[in-house]
């Protein structure tokens, strides 16, 4: 009787172990399915022509996504220019001020920013920039994406700088260096790897964002570099063409999806390698 009971308990334990394994491994299935499917569907569409041409009207074969590639690069570059300085400065502020009222509110603000649904940020950018400027523009899209980048950069900067040994800073102060030189010449160079990986993660995060661009950058079937005009971006193109009824446009969207997916995966894996090499904790 007792042996039976023990056998039952061991069997139950093994059963749950097997169940855990099955469920855990099952999570890899959708990821591999998505990677496989997108790459299989996208790889045949990608060639030189695809990268340097703009989309053709419905019914005409061919066409490419040059406008979306250029647009994405411009929008992201502009967003980085806005977000990186503010993000790093705020991160330094938080790491220097562990306590205090403003630091508390600032930390709370970062947590809130991290959780805001991206569509709400689109609404905000619409009212802050699109309406006052009188039209959809790449600039407003960049601002929306910059808001999304901020919390990631602030967090990674703060966490990286917090982990540096205080002796480093004290040594620099003991030499009579002023605060800004201690930060710029000692603290930032030492923590640069962590900050860089934060920046890259934030870029990876915003590259795929569509919702904030819907009513800001809006999309544009033509190639443009004018940041006050509507501009196409990769995720916008995928959304618009994937939900259209035309097969030619679906093809463009598959190609664009593959490029977007590979770029995001590349950024993530590259960041991971950097942080593994420099032992950064994110």
């Amino acid at each position: 009787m007792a042996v039976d009971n023990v056998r039952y308990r061991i069997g139950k334990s093994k059963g749950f172990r097997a169940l855990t394994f099955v469920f855990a491994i099952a999570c890899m299935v959708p990821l591999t399915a998505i990677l496989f499917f997108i790459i299989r569907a996208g790889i045949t569409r990608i060639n030189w022509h695809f990268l340097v041409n703009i989309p053709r009207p419905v019914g005409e074969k061919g066409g490419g996504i040059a406008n979306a590639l250029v647009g994405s690069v411009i929008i992201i570059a502009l967003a980085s220019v806005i977000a990186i300085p503010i993000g790093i400065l705020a991160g330094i502020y938080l790491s220097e001020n562990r306590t205090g009222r403003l630091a508390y509110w600032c930390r709370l603000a970062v947590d809130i920013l991290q959780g805001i649904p991206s569509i709400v940020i689109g609404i905000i950018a619409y009212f802050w920039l699109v309406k006052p400027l009188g039209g959809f523009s790449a600039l407003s899209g960049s601002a929306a994406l910059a808001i999304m980048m901020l919390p990631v950069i602030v967090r990674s900067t703060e966490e990286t700088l917090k982990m540096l040994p205080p002796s480093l800073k004290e040594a620099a102060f003991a030499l009579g260096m002023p605060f800004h030189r201690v930060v710029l010449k000692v603290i930032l160079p030492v923590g640069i790897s962590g900050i860089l990986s934060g920046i890259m993660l934030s870029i990876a995060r915003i590259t795929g964002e569509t919702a904030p661009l819907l009513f800001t950058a809006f999309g544009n079937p033509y190639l443009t570099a004018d940041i006050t005009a509507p501009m196409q971006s990769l995720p916008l193109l995928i959304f618009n063409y994937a939900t259209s009824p035309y097969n030619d446009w679906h093809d463009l969207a598959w190609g664009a999806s593959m490029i977007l997916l590979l770029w995001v995966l590349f950024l993530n894996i590259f960041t991971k390698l950097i942080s593994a090499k420099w032992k950064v904790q994110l």
Partner: protein
Amino acid sequence: MPTSLPAPAISTPAVRDTVNIRRRIRRAFRQIRTETVFKQALVISGLLLVILVLGILLTLITQSVPSIRLLGFRFIWGSTWNPVKDVYGAFPFLLGTLLTSFLALLISIPFSMAIAIFLGDYYPTGWFASLLKNAVELIAAVPSVIYGFWGLAVLVPMVRGLEVRLGMQQPLGVGIFSASLILSIMIIPYAASLGRSMIQMVPGHLKEAAYGLGATRWEMIRHVVLPYTRSGLFAGILLSLGRALGETMAVTMIIGNSSILPKNLFAPGNTMASVIANEFTEADKTVYLSALIELGLALFLVTVVINIIGKKIIDRLTND
């Protein structure tokens, strides 16, 4: 030689020192000024973040005032959404959001908890563990528009097949169930990675004590690990829920975009986020636009509260 007269006077040691000292003092003052400016820049950028969040809240509130004033509580309980006739009842969207999010959560919890236990207790190290860990993080990295596109091409036909087999009247494929499925994949990483780090923090002596009393591995997990990490796992699930509530693009592409109150789980519907994405640029009337922004405000408040609660739980756990 009148011009060369002052030269020897300057080069006396005493004069040289005063010039040097004066120069040094000037430099020190300049450094101090830069230091102050730098410190102010830090404070300003910190303040900027606070102002940004307050500004977002304020903009949402002021812009949704027309709708709040005109519609009041009818907005929440009204089940008809017909902008052409100026009828704005957001109940179908509230229901759509709650249904998709909680269904997605229900589907994803077994998977995310399995990953958390697998990586936290059974196999914390090893090549397969790091492969699984990275794969789970990549799930979070894939852009939502790609989930949407893949869902349209692969998941929707599968769900349509299921609906045909169930003998449904209109097998559409798109609908609340499909949206929940895609959402459930997308939110796995949030609960899984937090759960893993929480389970890894369980002290070894507690586990060993359980083994010492003759517990099997499952009994140890069930009676030591899970109770010990209960609030951490809960926080992870909250973060997942926050993600699911605010997720826009994948849901918009798959849910079918119907403003009619959904009759069953397979019916097409709309969530708060998807209706904003679909109709914001078409909203030509002040009340219409304002009603959409009120949805955004509700979304903002709900996700903020959920995220802050989750964050507070995590902070308390990691500080102890």
